[in-house]
């Protein structure tokens, strides 16, 4: 029983930790986009690539697209 509680707390911490590092990465990339957009705006394609990279991380880690391919009611 205590083991289950510890396991639950550990998984909660890990999930919250993932949320933090994804957010930090998105923040750094967005600030990088801003700097590039202000000083070298013709680099539109590169900026779109960065946006696609950011979107990938949100779709995988925040939207949990992987849950679509599980059949066991994962997470609930």
């Amino acid at each position: 029983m205590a083991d289950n509680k510890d396991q639950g707390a550990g998984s909660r911490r890990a999930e919250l930790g993932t949320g933090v590092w994804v957010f930090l990465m998105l923040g750094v990339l967005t600030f990088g986009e801003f700097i590039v957009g202000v000083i070298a705006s013709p680099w539109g394609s590169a900026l779109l690539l960065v946006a696609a990279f950011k979107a990938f991380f949100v779709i995988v880690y925040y939207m949990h697209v992987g849950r679509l391919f599980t059949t066991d009611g994962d997470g609930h």
Partner: protein
Amino acid sequence: MSSHVASYATKLARNRLGLWLFLISDSFLFVGLFVTRVVLLGANRPDLNQILGLVVTAMLLLSSFFMNRAEVEMAHGNRPAFLRNTFITMVLGGLFLLGVVGVEWQLAPFGPGDGAQGAVFFAMTGFHAFHVLTGVMLLYIVWNNGRRGLFSAEQHWGVEAAAVYWHFVDVVWMFFYVGLYLMGSPV
């Protein structure tokens, strides 16, 4: 009991598929708007306040962070933390709307009828803002249901659906931010 759990898992899988199909169909609208921007404006972009663009973008990113926390907390049965994080997400969504519709629309040096850049800017931000507004309304419903104790660690599809929708709105803005504020030279 086990058949109830099995039927909930089946329903959940169908709900997830339905939501993602809806989001894919909705994304065609946004892709269409983005392509319109590329065709009509090309290597130019509307002359907008870039600091304001960065600030509203940061608000939306931060709101996604708190929405993710809200979902994780509900999945672990921590209702007070879920309610707190969902509330913060709603406030940040409201501030984003205020920044775009209340400030950026007023500061823009053109109107919706002033040529291609006005049409593109107001159509893109308008459609997106409408999605943010519906997202905030959905979050309010989920927050209120959470307050009434309608979600549990085992069953909280409403929370998951609202979170996925909210992150989708964030993903759309990632591309719109580049298209409106960063790509090309200001007209």
